[in-house]
């Protein structure tokens, strides 16, 4: 099991409340205006072809709070899947616009729309060769080449596929609990040097349901207290042109230290589904750094 842990201690002053800083999805809330954020995510995948946590992906992410309602992210992806070294896979651009905010003391209801475009250079169908030995009946062996074909029927815009997605997010915060739901649509595009295979789904409906809870501190007395948030998320997909679906569960724990450092540790795994996927389970580790009041006037 390979873990890449970044030991950059980070300042995170996101405009969102901490228990709605979901680990596998985005809340309807936004970053503070005129702020910049940098993230490093590392995912370690339990690959279906060898049933081991043998591959990882690094996802540096650069975020800009354009104004109080609009934020833009740029993602870069690199992984070592099916190869010996880390290789650059592609980039994505994400934008989120908060269009509704009903706030009250210790609570809010917010809604946002998002859009994402990913440009990725991975194969859509991967064929690997394995040497297979078979007795030839007279004491010797015949060596065959066995072809393994790995198909990824999951439209994964976080490094595996080029594509577009859009959707709507609604988040409700009441005291220590934040619940969020999203509904969206993804459309697969040709990967840079690899065309979409006919057999894979080309578009899908996505949905998620997330809950976050502020476990510690029980009472706030200082910015120096460590916050611990617990998350449970459900992420599902239904392909619209093929009979592919799956539902994942993703529990996570989040530490916020000194009201300045954010560290996420999560695990996402399939609950049920019929979709051929590169990996059904993965660990995630994230660290985040934000610079506040970067472009603001006084």
């Amino acid at each position, binding site marked *: 099991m390979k873990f890449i842990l970044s030991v950059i201690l980070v300042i995170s002053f996101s405009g969102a409340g901490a228990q709605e800083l979901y680990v596998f999805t985005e809340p309807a809330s936004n970053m503070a205006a005129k702020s910049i954020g940098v993230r490093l995510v590392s995912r370690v995948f339990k690959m279906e072809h060898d049933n081991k946590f043998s591959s990882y992906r690094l996802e540096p992410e650069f975020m800009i709070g354009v104004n*109080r309602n609009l934020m833009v992210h740029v993602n870069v992806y690199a992984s070592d899947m099916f190869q010996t070294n880390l290789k650059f896979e592609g980039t994505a651009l994400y934008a989120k616009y908060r269009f509704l905010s*009903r*706030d009250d003391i210790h609570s809010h209801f917010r809604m946002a729309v998002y859009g994402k475009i990913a440009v990725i250079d991975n194969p859509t169908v991967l064929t690997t060769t394995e040497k297979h030995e078979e007795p030839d009946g007279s004491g010797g062996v015949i060596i065959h080449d066995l072809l393994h074909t790995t198909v990824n029927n999951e439209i994964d815009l976080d490094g595996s596929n080029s594509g577009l997605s859009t959707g709507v997010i609604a988040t409700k915060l009441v005291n220590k609990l934040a619940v969020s739901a999203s509904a969206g649509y993804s459309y697969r595009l040709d990967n840079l040097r690899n065309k979409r295979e006919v057999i894979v789904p080309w578009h899908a409906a996505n949905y998620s349901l997330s809950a976050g809870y502020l476990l510690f501190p029980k009472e706030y007395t*200082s910015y120096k207290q460590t*916050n611990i948030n617990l998350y449970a998320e459900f992420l599902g997909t239904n392909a619209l042109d093929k009979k592919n679906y799956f539902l994942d569960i993703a529990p996570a724990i989040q530490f916020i230290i000194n009201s300045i450092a954010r560290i996420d540790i999560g695990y996402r795994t399939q609950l049920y589904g019929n979709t051929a996927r590169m990996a059904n389970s993965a660990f995630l580790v994230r660290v985040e750094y934000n610079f506040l009041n970067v472009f603001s006037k006084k």
Partner: protein
Amino acid sequence: MKNLILIMLVLFSFTSVAQVKTVSIQASGLTCSMCSNAINKAIKSLDFVDKVDANIKNSSFDVSFKPGSNIDFDKLKKKVEDAGFFVARFTASVNFDKVAIVNDDHVVIGNTVFHFLNVKDQTLNGDKTIRLLDKGFVTAKEYKKNIIYTKMECYKTGVAGACCAKDNLPAGKRIFHVTI
């Protein structure tokens, strides 16, 4: 010339000095310390702000100012909103020097126009706490309820309009609607 001096005397006799000592802001839409810190840092970035004392539990911030600086209530509100939240309650501790106020009427104090709502006619002297009632300085729920306190359009717009012509206020002049 004599008329001009008379007019200026009349104007000065209706304006008195009032000093804003501190402001207390309660923000809405947040629970956690990280969001509170975002607002804390945002308010501190204003050049007229000296210190911010944050109460994370109440989502409130007590702000003190640099002496002699130009304190801008609208800029404070904008900082909270740019951080991603809203103002639920905004009070100012002000030292008044014998300022006569009338309910549902305008009072010019220095360069600032106030419109007192839901108050008894009185003379303010010494330290008093005023609470802003303008849109964006109270919750949306409370703003809707406060409409009953005046028929003047300036409460909805926050600036002088036809309703304020009788007080010789230039159109578009910012009016702060307050109560005690």
